[in-house]
């Protein structure tokens, strides 16, 4: 556990040192601020639901930027040799890295609370919808971070990892579109796997446990896959 926290702390320091993280954060606030201004001023309403669709789209671009160097950079700099020969297990290494990503994700979510806070000055806000939407945002972001982390274990090149992460996220994002056009018969099944579609209940203010499980399961699956990819490197 201590080793995991050490790795987490190191990763957070690295976020702090790396320009990519600053660019990603700036991009996130610029675009989400833009969306907020457009919908809030444009529609003159305190309906928070308008916010979330847009923030989720920004995640699609920001999260690959934030996860791409997590493992890739270690592989490129040869520091994986340090981690893998230390007493830390691969589960601890991946766990620590995911914990750091999760902290960053939590920051993104918490800071975006500023938008409903501004809205609340102009009218009442539907509290259950607000908080459950934020829960959905956090779960979605955490899942995307886990997928990005997995993509990062696949290559020693940050850019490749970033693109792979983006592609994987995009596919999971649009998987239910298949059901609308080509595979109409599989529509219901495909919709269950859409990472955005799963947020709709929560964002209506309905707490649906299977949705939460869906995200937690995806996180676990991708973390286990990441551990396996690193474990495989010992057998090269």
């Amino acid at each position: 556990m201590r080793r995991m926290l050490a790795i987490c702390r190191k990763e957070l320091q690295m976020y702090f040192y790396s320009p990519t993280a600053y660019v990603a954060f700036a991009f996130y606030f610029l675009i989400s601020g833009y969306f907020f201004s457009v919908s809030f001023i444009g529609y003159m309403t305190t309906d928070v639901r308008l916010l979330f669709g847009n923030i989720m789209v920004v995640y699609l671009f920001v999260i690959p930027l934030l996860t791409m160097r997590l493992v890739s950079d270690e592989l490129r700099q040869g520091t994986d040799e340090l981690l893998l020969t230390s007493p830390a297990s691969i589960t601890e290494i991946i766990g620590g890295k995911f914990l750091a990503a999760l902290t960053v994700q939590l920051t993104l979510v918490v800071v975006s609370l500023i938008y409903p806070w501004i809205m609340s000055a102009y009218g009442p806000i539907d509290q259950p919808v607000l908080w459950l939407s934020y829960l959905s945002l956090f779960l979605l972001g955490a899942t995307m971070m886990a997928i990005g982390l997995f993509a990062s274990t696949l290559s020693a090149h940050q850019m490749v990892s970033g693109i792979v992460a983006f592609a994987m996220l995009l596919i999971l994002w649009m998987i239910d579109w298949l059901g609308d056009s080509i595979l109409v018969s599989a529509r219901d099944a495909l919709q269950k796997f859409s990472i955005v579609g799963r947020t709709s209940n929560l964002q209506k203010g309905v707490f649906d446990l299977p949705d939460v499980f869906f995200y937690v399961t995806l996180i676990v699956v991708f973390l286990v896959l990441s551990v396996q990819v690193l474990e495989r490197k010992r057998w090269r």
Partner: protein
Amino acid sequence: MLEVKQVSKLYENRRGVEQMDFSMSRGEIVGFLGPNGAGKTTTMRMITGYLNPTRGSILVDGLSMADHPKKARSKIGYLPETPPLYPEMTVQAYLRFIADLRDIPVREQKPRIGEVVEKLGLQGREKQIIRSLSKGYKQRIGLAQAILHQPDLLILDEPTSGLDPKQIIEIRGLIRELGENHTVLLSTHILPEVNAICNRVLIINQGRIVLDDRPDNIGSSMGETFEMSVEIKGPREDVIRQLGTMPEIGGVKEADEPLETDAETVKLRLTSADRTDIREAVFYKLASLGYPILEMKRESLSLEDVFLKLTTTEEKGAEAETAAEEVEEHA
């Protein structure tokens, strides 16, 4: 301390390590020698647990790397070929991270880091970003990282590569010092380094151990005859004739170095008839003749010769040539 038992690492399309078998006892400094691509790094990576061997087992202080990887790894300090540093971090933050990673209790971290920083001459650099430091300092931080948790076994992969001569001497001194408290396995393709630091040498070529001996034994054990060179004060012809009559001596050759102009002295290279030491016999013989010996030296095969002999007889060809070139470069 370390047992490597019948370890092989097989790759589909290139040579790995085949049937590596050796052990090290506590306090030894072992030099791991071989041309590039001989399997030094692969072997070290298997010992440190970075790679799993295809076959065979590795025991560190009696603990199997396969069955107790965490415990076994915690007994090892490892400096890979390129020091595993995070260039964005400061020296202090980096060593802190290593201390956490290596389970050093929080209370002991500060004094321990201070100790290591002092030992490696890093004082005054703690607050600097690693990226801004020179290669020599980076190598030292790499060493600091390896010894921070006071490991029983220290594995160093080419610890002096890429350093300037002054830094090389410093690092060698450090390793010798570390050898007093740790068991050290270091790899190199620089031969004098082994003579300078190690008390045992393992030469590997193409994934196999071809020689395992003390560095000062190697020369004599490889030579078929005893060779020596002498400088004698006396008439040239008579000295050569007199020595030629001795039964112990198989051959008398004038040293091919140009002689000094005064014909008072003669330099000779003597070969024994069998493998016995002929120095004493030569001394008494010349003493009885009244020709003083000005200089006498035992000639043994240098590590270079041994290395070339071993690595070229295995497989004559391009690979051996490149090995020879490298030796020349570093000689």
